[in-house]
């Protein structure tokens, strides 16, 4: 009998393998004749890649499957989310705290993934807030925002959040230069007085916790985008700049005057030495550091008061400027770390700088003047090549790991494939329409997974069923495994798909947390069994310690609440079963629902305003008797003698 079973199992196993193989052939790009098949993921099957697509002005981060383009989750990061109670419940409110107070929104731009030895490792995703400068860390085990740090002295946190080769730092540059420290001064005295701050945030390799290690004080340019060096250029960070004119008005004209702006090459290993030697000033600065603690399931916000700052003009060897034509936007480093591609957004060509030539130019002091004491390298001595007349309005470049670059052109609305080294254009594909960033999974690393390319478009016009004046923005999936790029799929996105990061599913899937262990829940208001549920009063502050389990609340009858009370509902989900959340909402509560995962405790605040008996219910369709999952709470007039009482089934 045992032999039979073994045989049977191996038959099953063989069968599963053969079935899986035929599927992978279907998805196998160049092999498939049918384009629809190649983005089709059958019901119940999983996608090959995760795509983390920025929500842009929605402030969030959306998780998609590739190649199907299916949306799995919108992770709230910088904007409140009533669906998940993010920014509404007492536990997550501190996440949105800043030195300006609580802010319910931001503009999220550039997700980037943690790396080890120059390859993405599936631990964390980072994303910047553009408007009120912040960087967030999202766990790829829980898909929750775990940490947000504000960046002082920065304004328009655009050239962020880019990860160095071993996730030593998250690097974040300012788009707007401002007075440092901030002060009351005339705007037209910008030139020479405003400065740009570039922040280096250290990442603890175990916990992922941030520490704003130091900032560089740079000349008052606009720092647009950045990428880290890798391989031989590890230890350097490259930033594109515009407005080297240092203009402060009608920028569309005045910041476009110089034929060349710069790519700033920053030697951050040198900066580390300076910090170690004490060559920095401590600048009073106010910024919030918000951390989610998985153990207590609560966020805390701490306001910090100072930052170490290095004046880039004072220390030779720290920063060099590489002249780059026409207000470079994208600043992208190829997988070998040798070439730094500057895309002059007002030009028709891209400039590739050579890291080897840059080091040689530095060693032999091939300088062409300086800007605020920072040497400007001679253009001809650092340029490796130019991709000529490739299109109009080049923005961003990613690489496929097979020696090809792919650049988006906003004005001519296309993706152009070109060869690294020979700089010849190999192929072009239209986008629908006006593409901004593009993404190849692992694109910002030494090891891109060059099977798919996602173009992130700003305009859709007639691409989907119309929805009034406001239309969906869009991503487009191309198969790049062959010589020619092939458009496989359009899919609409959440907010503006500003930039994205992608990773093979196999890097992330095995690390998934399925539920919170109830015994490890150290939330101060957690209760771990129904017999411990209670209601307490201290003056007009009432705490309800409640539990949920299929399909009831405990307690579900509460009396003795009074108008004018401040009532905290601490609700613990006692379930320990994968994918069994419960929700709760209270009539008239001026907040969102709670959506509580198994083993988790969340809290909402309710100010009872009217006398009566009011219901509450479970908002997540949890079970067959979900509709019975409800309760009543009695609200008596202020000062009433109705005693505090709570029960479930009369007990």
């Amino acid at each position: 009998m045992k032999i039979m079973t073994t045989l049977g199992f191996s038959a099953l196993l063989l069968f599963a393998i053969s079935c899986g193989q035929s599927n992978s052939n279907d998805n196998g790009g160049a092999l498939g004749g049918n384009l629809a098949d190649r983005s089709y993921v059958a019901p119940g099957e999983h996608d090959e890649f995760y795509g983390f697509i920025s929500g842009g002005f929605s402030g969030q981060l959306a998780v998609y499957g590739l190649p199907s383009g299916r949306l799995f989750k919108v992770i709230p990061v910088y904007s409140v989310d009533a669906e998940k109670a993010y920014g509404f419940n007492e536990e997550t409110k501190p996440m949105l705290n800043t030195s300006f107070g609580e802010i319910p929104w931001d503009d999220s731009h550039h997700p980037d993934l943690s790396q080890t030895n120059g390859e993405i490792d599936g631990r964390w995703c980072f994303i910047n807030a553009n408007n009120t400068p912040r960087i967030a860390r999202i766990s790829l085990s829980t898909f929750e925002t775990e940490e947000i740090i504000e960046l002082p002295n920065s304004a328009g946190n655009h050239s962020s959040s880019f990860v160095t080769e071993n996730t030593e730092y998250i690097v974040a540059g300012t788009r707007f230069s401002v007075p440092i420290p901030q002060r009351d001064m005339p705007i037209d005295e910008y030139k020479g007085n405003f400065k740009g701050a570039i922040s280096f945030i250290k990442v603890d390799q175990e916990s992922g916790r941030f520490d704003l290690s130091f900032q560089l004080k740079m000349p008052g340019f606009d720092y647009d985008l950045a990428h880290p060096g890798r391989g031989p250029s590890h230890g350097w960070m490259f930033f594109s700049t515009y407005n080297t004119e240092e203009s402060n008005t009608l920028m569309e004209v005045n910041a476009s005057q110089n034929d060349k702006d710069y790519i700033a090459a920053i030697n951050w290993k040198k900066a580390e030495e300076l910090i170690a030697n004490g060559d920095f000033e401590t600048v009073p600065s106010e910024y919030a550091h918000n951390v989610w603690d998985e153990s207590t399931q609560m966020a805390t916000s701490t306001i910090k008061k100072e930052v170490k700052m290095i004046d880039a003009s004072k220390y030779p060897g720290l920063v060099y400027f590489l002249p780059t034509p026409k207000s470079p936007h994208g600043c992208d480093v190829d997988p070998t770390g040798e070439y730094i591609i500057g895309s002059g957004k007002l030009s028709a060509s891209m400039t590739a700088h050579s890291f080897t030539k840059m080091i040689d130019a530095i060693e032999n002091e091939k300088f062409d003047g300086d800007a605020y004491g920072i040497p400007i390298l001679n253009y001809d001595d650092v340029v490796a090549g130019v991709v000529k007349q490739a299109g109009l309005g080049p923005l961003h470049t990613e690489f496929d790991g097979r020696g090809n670059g792919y650049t988006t052109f906003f004005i001519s609305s296309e993706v152009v494939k070109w060869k690294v080294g020979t700089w010849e254009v190999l192929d072009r594909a239209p986008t629908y329409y006006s593409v901004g960033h593009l993404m190849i999974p692992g694109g910002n690393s030494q090891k891109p997974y060059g099977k798919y390319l996602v173009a992130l478009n700003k305009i859709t016009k007639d691409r989907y069923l119309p929805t009034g004046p406001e239309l969906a923005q869009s991503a487009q999936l191309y198969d790049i495994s062959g010589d020619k790029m092939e458009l496989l799929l359009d899919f609409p996105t959440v907010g503006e798909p500003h930039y994205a990061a992608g990773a093979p599913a196999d890097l992330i899937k095995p690390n998934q947390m399925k539920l919170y262990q109830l015994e490890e829940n150290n939330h101060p208001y957690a209760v771990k069994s129904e017999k411990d549920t209670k209601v307490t009063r201290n003056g007009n502050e009432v705490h309800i310690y409640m539990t949920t389990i299929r399909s009831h609340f405990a307690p579900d009858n509460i009396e003795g609440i009074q108008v004018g009370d401040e009532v905290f509902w601490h609700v613990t989900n006692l379930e320990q079963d994968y994918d069994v959340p419960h929700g709760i909402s209270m009539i008239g509560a001026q907040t969102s629902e709670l959506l509580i995962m198994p083993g988790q405790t969340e809290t909402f605040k309710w100010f009872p305003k009217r006398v009566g008996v009011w219901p509450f219910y479970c908002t997540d369709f949890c079970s067959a008797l979900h509709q019975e999952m409800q309760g009543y709470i009695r609200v008596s007039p202020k000062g009433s003698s109705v005693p505090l009482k709570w029960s479930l089934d009369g007990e």
Partner: protein
Amino acid sequence: MRKSQLLMFVGSLLLLSLFVFPLWNITLEAPQYPEAIGMDIYINKFVDKNPNDIKNINIMNHYVGMEDIPEQIPEFEIFPSVVIGMAAIGAIFGFIGKKKLFVAWFTVMIILGSIGMYDFYMWEYEYGHNLKETAAIKFTDEDGEPMSYQPPLIGSKMILNFKAISMPRLGAYLMFVGMSMTLAAFVIEKKEDSKET
């Protein structure tokens, strides 16, 4: 020590593996549980197949009025002493080395095993039929009688949308192997006897 004595000795001591390995397993498969849930039954405890399985079985079963799977049942106190006792007696019989003792031990084991299976069946029956009056969901079978949720003694059975599978586990298999060894010891002894005569 003769070969048959060794077989008797080792075979009876194999019973002790029941303290290490589960005796039986009940698994529930359903579409909403891509990783099936279940419990291992030891001679002294019920254990989750995956963390929280028993809790989740109880949550599901409470809708149809079933009682929770208890943490403690009287068998958990009786079975271990019986197993230890039988293992010790078997080992001693091995030393003594008389074939009548071998077959006597084997027979007692068969009887005890059958009682155990009957007891297990009765527990399953009770578990599957003892439904609370206040059950939220009440199903009836084809004859209009209240539906029973009794898992099979061995093999598999569909209960609503769940496929319940009940199978022996390593502990039970080792016990069977041990018992076979004692039977073999008896057979060898008997053959030796017939040769001598």
